[in-house]
């Protein structure tokens, strides 16, 4: 009897310890490193038009922060970064007619900067990787 009781207590203690050591799932280590790398890429290449706060410039450079145009189609974002964009687009119900040139990023760099912009300023999205980026073709 006593043995069984000890067993139950031990089991319970073990369970409590297991529960206590249970932490919420950490963001994928590769991903957060990707976002950090993406921040650097953004600062050198994108911030000058889309601004460090992702707000862009009214009528000229669309915002990325909470941008419907960006978040509704991440693949299109990848294509835009790789190939540039000309002509009229609508972002958050405002119209932009600008000219963006493409960037010669490596697949990893493209994934990094996409991860940064889709996970900053209130944006949240699943992260992509270099394999995903390799499928985004240069025109």
């Amino acid at each position, binding site marked *: 009897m006593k043995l069984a009781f000890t067993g139950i207590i031990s089991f319970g203690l073990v369970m409590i310890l297991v529960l206590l050591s249970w932490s919420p799932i950490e963001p994928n280590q590769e991903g957060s490193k990707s976002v950090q790398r993406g921040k650097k890429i953004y600062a050198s290449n994108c911030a000058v038009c889309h601004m460090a706060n992702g707000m862009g410039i009214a009528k000229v450079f669309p915002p990325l922060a909470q941008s419907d145009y960006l978040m509704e189609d991440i693949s299109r974002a990848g294509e835009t970064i790789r190939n540039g964009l000309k002509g009229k687009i609508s972002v958050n119900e405002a119209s932009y007619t600008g000219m963006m*040139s493409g960037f*010669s990023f490596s697949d990893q760099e493209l994934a990094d900067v996409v991860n940064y912009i889709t996970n900053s300023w209130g944006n949240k999205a699943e992260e992509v990787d270099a394999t995903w980026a390799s499928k985004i073709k240069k025109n």
Partner: protein
Amino acid sequence: MHAKDKNQSRRAFLKTSVVGTGGLMLSFNWLSAQTDTWEGKEVRALENVRLSGHIIINADNSVVIYSQNPEIGQNVKTSMPMIIAEELDVDWNQVSVEQADLDTEKFKRQVAGGSQSIRKSWPVLRKAGATVRALLISAAAEQWGVSAIELRTETGYVIGKSGEKLSYGSLAEAAAKQKIPKKVSLKKAKDFSLIGKSVMNVASREIVTGTAKFGIDTQREGMVYARLLHAPGFGQKLVSFDAKQALQIKGVTEVFEIDNKVAIIADSTWTAIKGGEAIKTIWSKPLTSEDSKVQRKTLLDMVNAKGQNAKVNMGNVEQGFKKADQVLERTYEAPFLPHNCMEPMNFFADVTDEKVELYGPIQTPENQRRAVAKLLKRSEDEISLGISRIGGGFGRRLNGDFVLEAALISNKIRKPVQLIYTREDDMTAGVYRPAVTYKFKAGLTDGKISAYDLSGAGINMRNTVRPGTWPQASVPNFKLESQSLESHVTFGYWRAPTSNFLAFAEQTFVDELAEIAKKDPIQFRLESLKQAIDAPFGKVRYEPLRMIGVLKLVAEKSNWETKKKGLYRGVSAYYSHNTYVAEVVEITIVGGQPKIERVVVATDCGIVVNASGAHNQAMGAVVDGIGHAMYGEMPLENGVPQHRNFDTYKALRNSEAPKVETHFVKSQKAPSGLGEPTLPPAAAAFANAMYAATRKRLYSQPFSEQGVVLQ
């Protein structure tokens, strides 16, 4: 005959002076003078006396010195006037510098090229300053009624025995009438008070306030803008074009064919750009012979072929290889490189019946005036050429293709024309650093190079090798071979022509030899250089002692002997443009990739004229060299350049630029140049450091294509 010539030149000199006296317009104190902008050139109105081609002395004792050579960023606009000011003995604070136009009567060799400006003008400029100083002393002697020997000068004053002073300004008019002395004495280097100091760039203030004008900034009343559409690929011919849409654009006035290109004439730069975009052109078929893959294979076949054109052939390399302890053979390949000066090509031309006026950014003004005269069948006397400030030369603007184009267009439409190239026009226009391939083969005997055979093949390259440079005199069996592959791709002189890639190939190859010989890379080179001093093979066409000097200096400054864990070093040494350079690149490895911690550069260029300018050139060329080795390439697909702008053509950015420490050998030798010499060894030192860290060698550029990512 000779005496007559001398008198003639003397009279001509005086004639210039007398005409100069009070011969220019208004009188106001130039120190607070407004600069008048007149037809795109800045003209200072002065009360002055022009005492030589280079020097004007004003009544208020201020001095204007003309800088004769094109200024492309090498800062000769500061250093060349410094040389004059030193011998003239004036206070630098009283000096202002003006850019000279092309004027072959007043100036010799107005060329920015080969890093030769200082070296070639050193004796001339010193004499100019010293001669004017002598005239001023002579004038003072006359005024005081004393002998010139009793007098001395000090920062703009002639000073008598008892300390009485006369300013240069007060003596200028009289000086112009003095007899020009047969001989003048020059200062001893130890007495230099200006040369060797750090002197601020004379154009700094204008540059930082946006008032410095480059060729592209030229604006004239009645001027039109022209843009040229050239063939998309090399060797293609214009078949037809449709300008209907272009001519509908407001501001586009004319479109016509000229010299296998289509010219658009418009009322503004943007209209000219848009006009060009609206033109439909049809060209002949692209040429597969101009494809980079095809050319690469051909170049490889060429260097591997036997019995080719030998530029140097000493001893017997085949026997040497047979007898050697070890033999090493390696092949190196380089792509085409565009220059990408930040200021795209442009030039101004105004052709009228009376005269031809040319103005803009060009490194070879005299050649261009001659070429334009020939092209337009005009006399050179009718042609004036003004040199603007130049937004980077790097050898691109040694070619005057765009000068001829501007002249041709203006001649046809008889209007003042500003020809502009867009970045795309510029990057795809050719005049590239040629693609080149090298095969090195060397034999080692007792740890020394006993046989050496270098075979080079390049696109339109008259010479891919450099006879006379190390290790020629250090090796008993020595052969240099060179071949040229003809191509429609136009040839350009790219910063340190030939050396810019050959040094990389040679100095990384040498590192492999040192490793086989089980010797420290610096030690291996020092021993080989010593061979050229103790028992040279044939004539030595460089100074091995000076090369030893920079190697020892770079070893000292980089702490070469002291190993540091995690720090990897590579060394290289190279002689080009009469200057000796040794470099050590230090890297650490971050995530398997190199981070350049610093580059240590030791240079022997003789006397350093402007210490700050020297550092800028030495540092800039190193970073430029590493940047292009990392990223630069212009692949052609059937002759069509595959990069058109910086969106795909990668340039080294600020975040990747390494720190560079520059050290100069203290020397009394006459100065040699700095615009180019520190570029050739840079990529090799980096690649050798990479090997030290990763045990992987690099045999082609760009390095980024070999998986190298700068941290």
